[in-house]
């Protein structure tokens, strides 16, 4: 009974915490530019993330290691240093984008420019992490995050031509703007396969004291949570395809995004969108902030736990405090949050191999996963994911140049 409750809670947490600025923006751009044609990219990203999250959870449950800890141990300090610098910098940009997302929601609600909100929002995020526990952040925010299910409701109410939607599940070449098409596809993959997602998930498995008996629970949560989460991204794409595309609206500014819900829900659609954006980005910003602190503390062997008092883990607390400040300062500079989001998603995609190649070794090393290592199927899938990631790395920067605008 306890396990069933934990599964339900885990799925709710994953679903509520799934949507963030990157997935909303990239899915909306895809739908507005290419109708249902890029649906496959969201599905592919969702599938990859199910497998990666499952393996991250299994690694932590069986070995008691966090991912940064295991990477430092198995691959040594040099590899960890590269991962730390690259992932750290990219994640700071993503954090900036999420804080920017909350600020945009505030601008939509009040009319006061988004930059003005950056520092107050940063303080709020810091205060919740400073005073709160892991449970409050993970579960509290995620429960509120269920408001993002309004996109799913909206997509179903609109009753789109489902056969066309289904056709989008298979990759096809577009009739126009090929470079932009592939650019959006890459940014969707960057938004879906966020390393912070499975690093945070693995830290959660350790915080919640998972052991081998949680392998089944982990599998169900990973598959269920990530599939339902992907469904929300799919809904955003559908809404953009049925609402923005016919009106010729390309997503060039955040002020266009509330349009996704207004035709379905009327005036309250606007407020639903503002609430969704606020909660989704606020939750993501907290998770990403913690992820940066986890990465540092776990890799260097410091005290880390969101359940301890800040005094007990001064270095950990200092890292997240600085991270939030840097993230907020990026927004204060006045950089367009939309551009920042797309840039950080593409860079996430471009740097994916560094964080996921180690899985191939760790998930087959009996020292870590004992008899619960990957079978041929998981290994094949993992190799395919790495192949996709390497391909994305090769094309991401050229596409940014030729298809980014």
């Amino acid at each position, binding site marked *: 009974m306890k396990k069933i409750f934990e599964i339900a809670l885990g799925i709710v947490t994953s679903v509520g915490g799934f949507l963030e600025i990157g997935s909303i923006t990239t899915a909306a751009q895809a739908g507005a530019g290419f109708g249902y044609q890029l649906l496959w990219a969201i599905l592919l990203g969702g599938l990859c993330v199910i497998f990666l999250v499952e393996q991250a959870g299994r690694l932590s449950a069986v070995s008691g*290691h966090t991912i940064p*800890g295991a990477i430092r141990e198995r691959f040594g300090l040099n590899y960890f240093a590269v991962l730390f610098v690259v992932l750290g910098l990219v994640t700071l940009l993503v954090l900036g984008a999420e804080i920017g997302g909350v600020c945009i929601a505030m601008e939509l609600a009040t009319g006061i420019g988004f930059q003005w909100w950056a520092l107050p929002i940063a303080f709020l995020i810091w205060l919740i992490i*400073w005073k709160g526990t892991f449970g409050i952040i993970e579960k509290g925010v995620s429960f509120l995050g269920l408001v993002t299910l309004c996109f799913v409701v909206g997509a179903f109410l609109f009753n789109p031509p489902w056969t066309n939607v289904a056709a989008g599940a298979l990759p096809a070449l577009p009739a126009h703007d090929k470079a932009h098409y592939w650019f959006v596809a890459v940014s969707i993959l960057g938004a879906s396969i966020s390393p912070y997602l499975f690093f945070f998930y693995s830290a959660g498995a350790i915080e919640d004291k998972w052991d081998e008996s949680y392998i089944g629970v982990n599998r169900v949560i990973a598959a269920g949570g990530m599939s339902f989460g992907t469904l929300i991204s799919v809904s955003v794409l559908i809404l953009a395809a049925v609402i923005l595309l016919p009106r010729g609206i390309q997503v060039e500014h955040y002020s266009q995004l509330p349009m996704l819900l207004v035709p379905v829900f009327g005036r309250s659609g606007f407020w639903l969108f503002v609430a969704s954006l606020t909660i989704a980005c606020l939750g993501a910003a907290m998770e990403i902030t913690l992820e940066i602190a986890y990465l540092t503390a776990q890799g260097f*062997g410091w*005290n880390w736990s969101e359940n301890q008092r*800040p005094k007990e883990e*001064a270095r950990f607390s200092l890292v997240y405090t600085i991270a939030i400040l840097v993230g907020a300062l990026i927004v204060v500079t006045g950089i367009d949050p939309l551009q920042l989001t797309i840039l950080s998603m593409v860079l996430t995609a471009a740097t994916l191999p560094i964080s996921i190649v180690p899985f191939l070794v760790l998930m087959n090393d009996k020292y870590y996963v004992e008899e619960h290592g990957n079978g041929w199927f998981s290994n094949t899938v993992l190799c395919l994911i790495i192949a996709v990631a390497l391909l994305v790395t090769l094309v991401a920067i050229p596409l940014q140049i030729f298809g980014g605008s």
Partner: protein
Amino acid sequence: MDLVRDCLDKQLVDRNGHNMGRVDGVVLQLEKGKQPIVAFVEVGPVCQAERLHRSLGRVAKAISRRVGVAQQDPFRIPWSKLVAAGIEVIADVDAEETPALAWELWLRKKIIGRIPGA
């Protein structure tokens, strides 16, 4: 025991189970005509920097001396005080009394501990 696999980069905890860093370095003692013996393990930013690059190590050492928070950087723990246990290496010391936590304690006292709610 395989030093690199079973010791280097592992989580180091003190006798009370408190995290005190990772095993950043292993020091071997060589004497003519004798087998090399494992003398110490090292912990600390200077040791990490040295492993990344020699010049980075020099910079870290200079900064560490200048700042003067850690009395001994890298901090050396005699091999005889260590036990490898499961996924950790346990050192028979009290972490808070060693230079390994100098920065942690300095931050606690000077910055983090002074913020309300810490």
